[in-house]
């Protein structure tokens, strides 16, 4: 690994950036197909109601309306991780985003007009909007498709985990801290709103979905199940995706609805949400209440954690309910911890349902955990950096949950941010003035870094074609959602084959063409798709080197790939790579320069007790955040974010920094300004005017310190990176604000109002 690399580690602009800056990239909303209709969805007026009748006759008679469907017109299976979600709702509605009818018309305006003509009579019911109310034995069952008869009918998913001798660790504990943390609902707010274009051909019975999904093969399977079709009849094409962040991990009802409209009309149909619909109808980050008790011995060594989590699942269950699985790892395995018990319930309510969002529960878990660490440090009188360094994970550790930390940069990351933030001169508080107070806070995080085994395969396939002009086509199962994976893959190919980036093309957006991949999630693409590509490149080079060594009268080991040539290191003689391809292709052995490779990470399924090494490797990060709080207005200004992350190896510094800065900004929104408010199941602020995303004025100086641990299983030593920067940010910001003001706040966002209330009472604020 000491060889100087030509491409890896060098700042490389995204290959697809020119298309995007020039407006030429075709996103889902830009698709127009000849004869295309526009679909629109009528959603319920009430979060909980019986539907007494639906009359679509007036809508149907509006000229230009081609099709109106309701639940009684379709024959579908339920969607979702627990198959508890009807595509359309016919007899009852359970949350404000429920789909009651859908229209296809020749223009979007006509489709919207037709929705107004549909008459629905409801008998509203008293909904349940607080998960603790839903857990009461007197509560009615909210989702009747929850067939788990043993437990509470309003629990969709329960997780129980434990390790260690809890009794013994409690006895050793001289410092115990118990707190409740309340985490809000937040929205992905992708810049492109949800969209899909369905094109059904009644000639061959094939359905083509132009979809922004992050998981095309899971999507293909699930939509086939929903529509009672064979997956082979469905082709998923991913146009350029205008932001994902986990929102496109689940199949949502509008997608099979769009397909049904196309199947019924025999024409292509597009559904495009407006921004309000995007807020109301797309799955959000789980809101939850975390009860956490933690202990240390007299020296500050962590002893135990007891965790009880109650998540607001909303009315239906998505993959997001599985985020309890990721949160479990943070509680069981971030810092050394001898004993842990963990219970998490996802509870049905009549609120909007939650889905998957970057970090997948980890920002919530890390918030609670890192707040408790500060409280324990204060109680013990130990420095807040010191207690973290004392308990930091180390390489070679096998955690209580049996996660195997081969490489582990946790302690290095902590040391880096302690040093770089100049913490030791700032820790006693820098006085600015009576009005403005400064503070500094820490948080670390643990996340999977080598994929995550949650599906029968966590693998990715790659097919390579090197043509007679020396152009390489990489057909990868993985998907580009803006994160820069295409560029990373091209860089790998350039590194190995020595051909220009301009000669490398990536095909990764068509399930008819590309090989299997489980999808974009768990920060896995560079690691899994990267390893897959390296495997394929090795096979391709074997083919090329066999021929080139004949041509150059040498052995394959002597060959180097450089500047479009295959060269003998000994003699300096070389052949152009395309000429070698022609020799293979047109002369003996008359073969194409094509190879395929499948990579499956070495991870394993966890057992029923959730023990096992679920990822190929693990990523660690630490942040130090410095804030200045205006005690008059309650406004928090984040001055500096110091971020150190174990990335294994820096592949593309430019892309990596982009992930770090973007993740931190998203974390700052979570910490300071973002919250979806709801009242009795209705969303109160479904617009960018009222839902406050960070803007250019809110961005602090972000200092990034990559920690390179050279992960042996990673491509060139790299680990997954993209979720990490978001994960610890809200915790670190809150720790900094509490440090600045000497208050205790156990919920986010830290709005001026909340900060002022904390200052007024100097009390514990968690609502």
């Amino acid at each position, binding site marked *: 690994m000491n060889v100087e690399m030509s491409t890896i580690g060098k700042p490389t602009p995204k290959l697809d950036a020119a298309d*995007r*800056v*020039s407006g030429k990239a075709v*996103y889902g*909303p830009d698709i127009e197909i000849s004869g295309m209709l526009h679909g629109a969805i009528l959603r319920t007026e009430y979060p909980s109601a019986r539907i007494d009748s639906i009359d679509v006759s007036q809508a149907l008679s509006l000229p230009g309306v081609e099709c109106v469907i309701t639940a009684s017109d379709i024959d579908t299976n339920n969607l979702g991780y627990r198959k508890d979600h009807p595509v359309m709702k016919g007899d009852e509605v359970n949350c404000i985003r429920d789909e009651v009818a859908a229209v296809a018309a020749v223009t979007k305006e006509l489709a919207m007009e037709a929705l107004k003509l549909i008459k629905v009579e409801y008998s509203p019911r008293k909904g349940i909007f607080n998960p603790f109310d839903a857990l009461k034995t007197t509560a009615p069952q909210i989702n009747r498709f929850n067939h788990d008869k043993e437990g509470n009918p309003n629990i969709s998913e329960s997780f129980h985990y434990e390790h260690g001798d809890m009794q013994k660790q409690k006895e050793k504990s001289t410092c115990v801290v118990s707190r409740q943390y309340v985490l809000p609902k937040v929205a992905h707010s992708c*810049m492109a709103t949800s969209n899909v274009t369905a094109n059904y051909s009644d000639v061959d019975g094939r359905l083509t979905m132009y979809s922004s999904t992050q998981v095309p093969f899971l999507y293909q399977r699930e939509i086939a199940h929903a529509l009672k079709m064979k997956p082979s009849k469905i082709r998923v094409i991913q146009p350029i995706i205008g932001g994902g962040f986990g929102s496109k991990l689940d199949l949502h009802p509008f997608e099979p609805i769009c397909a049904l409209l196309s199947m019924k009309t025999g024409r292509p149909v597009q559904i495009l949400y407006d921004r309000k619909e995007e807020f109301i109808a797309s799955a959000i980050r789980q809101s939850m209440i975390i009860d956490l008790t933690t202990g240390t011995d007299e020296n500050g060594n962590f002893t135990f954690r007891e965790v009880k989590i109650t998540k607001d699942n909303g009315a239906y269950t998505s993959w997001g309910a599985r985020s309890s699985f990721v949160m479990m790892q943070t509680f069981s395995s971030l810092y050394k911890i001898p004993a842990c018990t963990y219970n998490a319930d996802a509870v049905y309510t009549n609120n909007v349902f939650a889905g998957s969002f970057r970090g997948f529960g980890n920002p919530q878990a890390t918030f609670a955990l890192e707040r408790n660490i500060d409280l324990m440090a204060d109680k013990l009188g130990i420095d807040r950096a010191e207690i973290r360094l004392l308990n930091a994970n180390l390489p070679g550790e096998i955690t209580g949950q049996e996660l195997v930390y081969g490489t582990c940069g946790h302690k290095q990351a902590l040391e880096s941010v302690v040093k770089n933030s100049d913490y030791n001169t700032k820790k006693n508080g820098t006085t600015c003035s009576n009005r403005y107070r400064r503070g500094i806070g820490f948080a670390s995080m643990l996340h999977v870094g080598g994929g995550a085994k949650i599906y029968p395969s966590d693998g990715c396939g790659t097919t390579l074609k090197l043509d007679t002009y020396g152009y390489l086509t990489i057909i990868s199962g993985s998907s580009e959602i*803006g994160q820069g994976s295409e560029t990373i893959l091209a860089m790998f190919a350039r590194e190995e084959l020595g051909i220009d980036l301009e000669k490398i093309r990536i095909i990764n957006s068509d399930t008819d063409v590309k090989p299997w991949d489980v999808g974009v999630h768990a920060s896995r693409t560079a690691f899994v798709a990267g390893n897959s590509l390296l495997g394929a490149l090795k096979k391709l080079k074997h083919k090329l080197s066999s021929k080139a060594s004949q041509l150059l009268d040498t052995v394959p080991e002597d060959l180097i790939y450089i500047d479009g040539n295959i060269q003998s290191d000994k003699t300096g003689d070389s052949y152009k790579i395309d000429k070698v391809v022609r020799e293979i292709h047109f002369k003996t052995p008359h073969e194409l320069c094509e190879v395929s490779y499948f990579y499956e990470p070495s991870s394993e399924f966890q057992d029923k007790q959730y023990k096992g090494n679920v990822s190929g490797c693990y990523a660690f990060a630490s942040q130090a955040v410095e804030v200045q709080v205006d005690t008059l207005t309650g406004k928090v200004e984040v001055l500096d974010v110091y971020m150190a992350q174990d990335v294994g190896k820096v592949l593309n510094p*430019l892309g990596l920094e982009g992930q770090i800065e973007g993740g931190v*900004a998203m974390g700052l929104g979570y910490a300071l300004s973002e919250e979806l408010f709801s009242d009795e199941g209705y969303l109160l602020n479904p617009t960018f005017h009222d839902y406050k995303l960070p803007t*250019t004025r809110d961005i602090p100086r972000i200092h990034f310190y990559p920690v390179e641990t050279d992960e042996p299983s990673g491509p060139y030593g790299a680990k997954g990176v993209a979720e990490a920067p978001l994960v610890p940010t809200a915790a670190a910001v809150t720790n900094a604000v509490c440090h600045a003001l000497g208050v205790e706040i156990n919920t986010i966002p830290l709005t001026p109002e909340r900060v002022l209330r904390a200052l007024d009472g100097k009390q514990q604020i968690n609502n």
Partner: protein
Amino acid sequence: MEENSFNISFTINGSYCEKQIPASLLLINLIRDELKLKGTKPGCMEGECGACTVLVDGKAINSCLFPAINITGREVVTIEGIPDGEKTLDSVQESLIQHGAVQCGFCTPGMVMAIKSFVEQCKTEGHLPTREEIEDSLSGNICRCTGYTKIIDASEALFDKSSGT
């Protein structure tokens, strides 16, 4: 188009154009649906995100709030009209690429237009903006991917280069 339709003439990306439009038509819909210029993006349709930014007589506006009828006799430039010279990409676009300021890219055309307008304005006024002023010039454009730092860097670099002139 039935009632309340009007004839308008305007320049789009340097070409003269006449259209009959309903009075209520928004500029973004004229651009995307009538002129089929899909580079201008619909982000929020309420003037909050800036993805639909275009130039009207050189000034950046949110095309989602702007009645199309108001462009009569005016010059509209969309992302497809940048650059206007021989080059395939404008210096603003080059700078965004080189600084790694593009991820999903849905906000990018709007960013390009906002930066372009600000650069031209500063040039006209002979003003070298501070970083805070650059941040302000982009505060109406939301990006969910990049965290803005690289977009601000990309804009700032344009001024570094031209500061001598």
